[in-house]
């Protein structure tokens, strides 16, 4: 087998030393030295589906917009309708180029009137910051980059609430999915506790001070609190397979500067009726011209083989290329080989069969509904 060369001068989160002490396998993720796995990807993945896992997601960026024009600025910059947000509520959204393609996908939190927090991806942090700064310049709003001020921890899985509840006086059952509150966590007052995540499970993301001592203390307290549930530290490997089973988009894969909102199937987060915003004109044109020509679909590989990122999708006969895989992997919980792929829209029909070119051979796959995995409804 062959192995990749090591990279230099990577950025580190405040928990970098702890990850190394835990023996995590580290990788370069968008310029960050991040843990890809600790005990093993499959074990970590299953622990999040069945119980609870803890992730360091401090590489995510945090941009705060303040000032009387902040809502207008966000409405201009983002495709979802932020005017519908109440204080304490968050929404999935995206910033678009004038072409209707993606600058990045984001989560917008309404912290207060005229006060918003936009959580952005790590790999696009500088680009996003410049884009936001340019975008808000004509509004009465000021953007501050708080990315380095927070350590962001994600506590994810069906036992996440029970785990975190031990460490806070806030009644977590009062926080609905995609809402947040401030409360004392591990003795730290005014900690932002959001019921958000990227795993397809229930869970929370907390934002704590980014000094190493505090970050490690809170990490260890969460691990201690989750011990009775078999909590595991989880790396980006499991984060990726969890989000893939749940068909959540990843920048640079399902969404990018060359793919538009309708192709990516994110229509429901795009509110063309809210008024003009960057990219809305181009998207209206796409609709007027009959909609997107290609679509993101879920594939299940039905013959032996694992579809991986970048592989070509062929017609069923395995002759002509029709599309490509954006993310593909064995799915540890579903125990199937799954993929997200772009194909011509006439192929966006569950049950339709295609081939994926796996190491020079066509392997049969079937279009299936996404998400591949949906968390079970809560028992009363």
């Amino acid at each position, binding site marked *: *087998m*062959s*192995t990749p060369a*090591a990279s230099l001068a990577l950025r580190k989160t405040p928990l970098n030393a702890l990850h190394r002490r835990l023996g995590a*396998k580290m990788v370069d993720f968008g310029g960050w030295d991040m843990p*890809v*796995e600790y005990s*093993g*990807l*499959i074990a970590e993945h299953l622990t999040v589906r069945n119980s609870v896992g803890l992730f360091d997601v401090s590489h995510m960026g945090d941009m705060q917009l303040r000032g009387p024009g902040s809502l207008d600025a966000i409405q201009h910059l983002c495709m979802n309708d932020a005017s519908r947000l109440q204080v304490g509520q968050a929404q999935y959204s995206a910033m678009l180029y004038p072409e209707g393609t993606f600058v990045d996908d984001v989560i917008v939190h309404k912290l207060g009137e005229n006060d918003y927090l936009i959580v952005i991806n790590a790999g696009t942090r500088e680009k996003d910051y410049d884009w936001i700064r340019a975008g808000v310049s004509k509004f009465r709003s000021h953007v501050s980059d708080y990315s380095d001020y927070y350590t962001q921890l994600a506590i994810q899985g069906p036992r996440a609430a029970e785990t975190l509840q031990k460490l806070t006086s806030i009644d977590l059952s009062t926080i609905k999915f995609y809402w947040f509150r401030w409360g004392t966590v591990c003795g730290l007052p005014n900690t932002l506790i959001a019921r958000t995540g990227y795993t397809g499970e229930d869970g929370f993301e907390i934002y704590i001070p980014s000094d190493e001592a505090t970050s490690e203390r809170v990490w260890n307290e969460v691990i201690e609190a989750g011990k009775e549930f078999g909590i595991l530290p989880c790396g980006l*490997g499991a984060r990726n*397979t969890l989000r893939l089973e749940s068909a959540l988009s990843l920048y640079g894969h399902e969404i990018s500067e060359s793919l538009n909102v309708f192709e990516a199937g994110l229509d429901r987060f795009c509110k063309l009726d809210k008024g003009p915003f960057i990219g809305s004109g181009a998207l209206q044109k796409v609709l007027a011209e009959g909609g997107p020509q290609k679509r993101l679909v879920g594939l299940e590989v039905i013959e*032996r083989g*694992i579809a*991986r990122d970048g592989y070509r999708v062929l017609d069923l006969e395995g002759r002509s290329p029709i599309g490509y895989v954006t993310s593909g*992997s*064995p799915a*540890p919980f579903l125990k199937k080989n799954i993929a997200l792929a772009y194909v011509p829209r006439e192929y966006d029909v569950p049950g339709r069969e295609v081939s994926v070119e796996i*190491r020079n051979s066509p392997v049969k796959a079937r279009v299936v509904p996404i998400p591949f995995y949906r968390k079970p409804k809560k028992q009363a």
Partner: protein
Amino acid sequence: MAYPANYRYTREHEWIEVNGSAGTVGITDYAQNSLGDIVFVESPKVGDKVEKGKVFGSVESVKAVSDLFAPVSGTVTAINEELAGSPEKINTDAHTAWIMKIELSDPSEVDSLLSVEDYEKFIKEETGH
């Protein structure tokens, strides 16, 4: 994990245990550790010819697929059927979970492979510590 002193190694992280003209081939602990959870092993068939330095199969983990390179040339005499159902055996003990057995066509090829000392030195250089 200790690397057996009686095995020889490749720079592509395969091991071979040679007994006369019979060889047993697998991947090293370093290889399984870099791959992570292994979910599939693509083996050759009994009777297939393999050629030194050429691809004879692949291992797939959740994260990646990696080619397997033959340490020496020869003819496949057996494959480890157990790996079809339990590929994770390679993660558990890479140095006993063999992938194929071969009849060497030129046993002198073994001389060009790394000794355990050379291999351990090689992976220290690869990991940079």
